[in-house]
Each structure stands twice: as C-alpha cells, then as structure tokens.
C-alpha cells in the first residue's frame, strides 16, 4: 500500500474515532467479492474509510441502504443477508436465510427488506430493523415447480415485483400488511426472465427475457392490463452471440421518453420509446453490454461489457447518440456507480484489483484506489430512489 493510502486510511480511522458527527450522504461501499468484505468509502474526497469483513460469498452481491443512509443491507450469493453499520463499520446483524440468493430490495417506507432466492426459489421478507422474518413467499410456478426468483424490485406503497425464471412469470406482492402479503401472478410472460428493472416512479416493471427476443412489461398502475411484450424480436431472427455474462438491468436508464437497455447476445444498446413501447433506435457498441447506465442528468450513457471486451467502457452523448470516448479503466470492469449528482463515476476493475474514479465532464481519471477483486460499488444516495 502506498504511503498516500496509508495516510488516507489513517485519517479515516481518526475521523471514525473522533466525536465529530460523521454525515452519511457521501458514503458508499465497494464489494470485495472474493473475500466476503466491504470497503466503506466516501466520495467527496475519494477516500477509503475502512473495511467490514465476514459477509460470506459475495459473488454477484448487491446492496440497498436504510432510509437514514446509515445501514447497508448486503445480499450475498450464499443466502446471507447482512446489515452493516457504515458509521461504526461493523456487522450490525446477519442472517443466512436461504441456500442461494441473487439480490433484494427495500420497501418504500424502509421497514421491510425483501430477498430474492434461487434455492429454495422464492422471496423472503425481513424486518429492516431486527432482520426477523416477516413473510415467506415460495415461488411455486404455474407448472407446480419451485422456480428461481430474479429481478426483485421495490415499487411504491410497499409493493414488490419479481420474476420467476424457470416458469416465466411476474408476481406482484403487496406488503402493506406484511403479515398477509397479497399476491398477483402474471403467468406465461415469456421464456427465462433473467433480470428486471423498475422506473423511478415505481410504475413500469420491465423483465428482460433470455429465452426469447423481447422484454416483458407490466404497468403497476394498471395491473389489470396484464403483461405486454415490448421490443419483440429485436434480434430480427439473427443467432445471438454466446453470452458469457448476463446483462444487468439494475437502474432505470431513461431520459425524456427514451429508455436504454442492453441487448442480450448482441453488440447493441436498444433505445425504447416509452410512449409507444416501440424501438426508437439502437446504439452500436464495442461488445456485449452488461450495464447501460445514464449519468444522473441523462446526458451521457455509460456502457461496460462482457468477455472478451470487459476491459472497455464506452461513453455516448445521449442527444446525438455519438460515441464520446472508449475508456480502458482496467481489466474486467464489472460495475460503475455515479456520484449522486453525476460529476464523477467510480468503476471497479476486478482483475486489476483497483477501483478508478473518472470525471464525467473531462472523461479523465481523477483517482484510483486499491481493492481486492472489486465488484459492485453502491453509494448511499440510492436510499432515496425507488427501484435501486
């Protein structure tokens, strides 16, 4: 570790021990996936404040935050749900709630944390405070079999929506009364939904399909209309490329009436018109997109890629859809996270064992920090957005 980093870490430790109150609005965490550890960071001065370990298998881990931005809820691959205190940098509570899980969400009122499980397939809902189980929703599909659950998203009014991978369904769980969840099931929505996202207003739920060319859309304000298929056959019958990494739909990338979605098995980002739900264009990109994310103001689109192009990140100007720059931030760029107002973006370069920070105006690197096999990066500002 460089002297500079030692100094910064020491400063962080001192800050943690002093009695001056520490705000949390610029905090965040970096997942060190192989070591079951989080690095607590602060994005105002690009500083690492400390580490919290003992979180289990964090491959594919995701994180949501309490509404006071003090606690991070970490969903581990091994079914672990860990509540981490960012200020004291310790585990506040931890439960191993299933054999194999994929992610989770927090309710609008911040009182419920829901986890999507592969094995046994279903959703479990916990009290955000105590992590006591409050509801257990086994995902038994119309075929009578238990299905893996993916794309669990929070909407308004303590409603959660999620998809059943094996049986091709979208379920809506109304948890206004957490002890008696009300379920609405939409069956036959398409083959192998693999991930989903929800709009910032909590209204539109989109599930990407792996087994078919298309996206399943549910309007949660008009659930009676059922699930509609949008962007049907966007592959135009061409054989998709082998998909070495599933794209991610986390984070609603929409500006004006256009949403941007990574295509499966194709070197394209799809643009959808949200008034008509028709394709409004495609942006050719350098590889198979994994994340297609908008800078918070919607002016830039940032895209990272699956193997073998996972060392690249491309930045596009949204109004003109022109490529601004192809960056090479490091080896195996897994995740990108914008600072709350978007002036900088943090990116994890797993195989370079570092996290790099870029200025989004100059598209130049402004900071870099060591991290062991970093994957997800999550800032506390997510606490105040639906569907993150």
């Amino acid at each position, binding site marked *: 570790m460089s002297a500079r980093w030692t100094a910064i870490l020491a400063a962080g430790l001192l800050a943690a021990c002093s009695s001056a109150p520490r705000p949390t609005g610029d905090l965040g965490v970096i997942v060190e*996936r*192989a070591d079951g550890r989080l690095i607590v960071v602060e994005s105002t001065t690009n500083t690492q404040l400390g580490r919290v370990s003992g979180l289990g*298998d964090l*491959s*594919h881990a995701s994180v949501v935050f309490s509404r006071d931005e003090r606690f991070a809820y970490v969903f581990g*691959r*091994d079914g672990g749900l860990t509540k981490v205190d960012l200020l004291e940098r310790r585990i506040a509570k931890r439960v191993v709630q299933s*054999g*194999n899980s*994929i992610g989770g969400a927090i309710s609008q009122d911040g009182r419920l944390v829901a986890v999507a499980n*592969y*094995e046994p397939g279903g959703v479990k809902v916990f009290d955000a405070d105590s992590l006591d189980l409050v509801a257990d929703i086994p995902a038994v599909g119309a075929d009578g079999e238990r299905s*893996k659950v993916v794309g669990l998203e929070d909407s308004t009014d303590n409603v959660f929506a999620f998809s059943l*991978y094996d049986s091709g369904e979208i379920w809506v769980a109304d948890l206004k009364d957490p002890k008696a969840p009300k379920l609405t099931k939409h069956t036959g929505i398409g083959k*192998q939904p*693999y991930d989903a996202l929800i709009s910032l207003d909590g209204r539109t739920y989109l599930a990407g399909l*792996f*087994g078919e060319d298309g996206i399943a859309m549910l309007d949660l304000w008009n659930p009676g209309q059922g699930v509609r298929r949008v962007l049907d056959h966007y592959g135009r019958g061409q054989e998709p490329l*082998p*998909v*070495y*990494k*599933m794209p991610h739909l986390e984070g609603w990338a929409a500006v004006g009436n256009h949403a941007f979605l990574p295509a499966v098995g194709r070197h394209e980002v799809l643009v959808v018109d949200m008034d008509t739900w028709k394709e409004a264009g495609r942006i050719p990109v350098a590889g198979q997109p994994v994340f297609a994310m908008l800078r918070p103001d919607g002016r830039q689109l940032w895209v990272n890629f699956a*193997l*073998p192009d996972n060392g690249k990140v491309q930045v596009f100007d949204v109004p003109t859809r022109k490529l601004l720059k192809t960056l090479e931030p490091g080896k*195996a760029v897994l995740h990108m996270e914008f600072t709350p107002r978007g002036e900088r973006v943090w990116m994890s370069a*797993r*195989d370079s064992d570092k996290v790099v920070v870029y200025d989004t105006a100059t598209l130049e690197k402004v900071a870099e920090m060591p991290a062991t*096999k970093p994957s997800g990066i999550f800032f506390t500002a997510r606490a105040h957005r639906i569907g993150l």
Partner: protein
Amino acid sequence: MSRGRLGGGLVAALLLLATPALASEPTALRAAELKDMVIQDCGSCHGMTMKGGLGLPLTRDRLAEIPAEALSAAILDGRPGTPMPPWRGMLNEAEADWIARYLKGETDVR
C-alpha cells in the same frame, strides 16, 4: 534459441495443426489463469464456490458421476436453450478438459 528447441517447437506446432484435439496440457501459468476464470467468470453463474446460481452447482460431489468428457463437451459447446454459453473460441479442448478435471478435483492445482 538453440536448434533443438526450435525443432521441438516446430514439431509441436505441426502436431497442433494436424490434431487440434491433442492441444497440449495448459502450462502452469495458463492453468492459474483458467482457475481464476472458473472462480470469477464461471462463478458469475455457477457461484464462486460452485454451489450454483443461475447455472447448476458444479460441486465435486455432483460432478463425480459425470465423465470429464461430458463436462468438457458442455463447456466447449454450451447447452443450447439455456444460458450456458459455448466457450469454444475462448478455450481450446485441452483447456476445457483441464477445467473439467479441475472441477472434478482431479487436477493437482486446486
């Protein structure tokens, strides 16, 4: 470079051209890369500890019954209709075979 080594290299290259299936055992360096790939890249679907995710568990116990050839075929050609992609193009046959044996616990690197 000595004459002998050059000759050996040529013979190996010719053999490779003639019978790609007999591509040689991965070097220690390549094996380390493959091991990393299994944990990191295969791990994104099979779990870093191979206990499964979107992909089936690839634990030694479960794989004990499945011959290495069947596993390496699944690795090279994928499983059409499922998210398991064909890795041919990214891996040669010897490498896929090495991974199959590694998953079964039959290589010493683990």
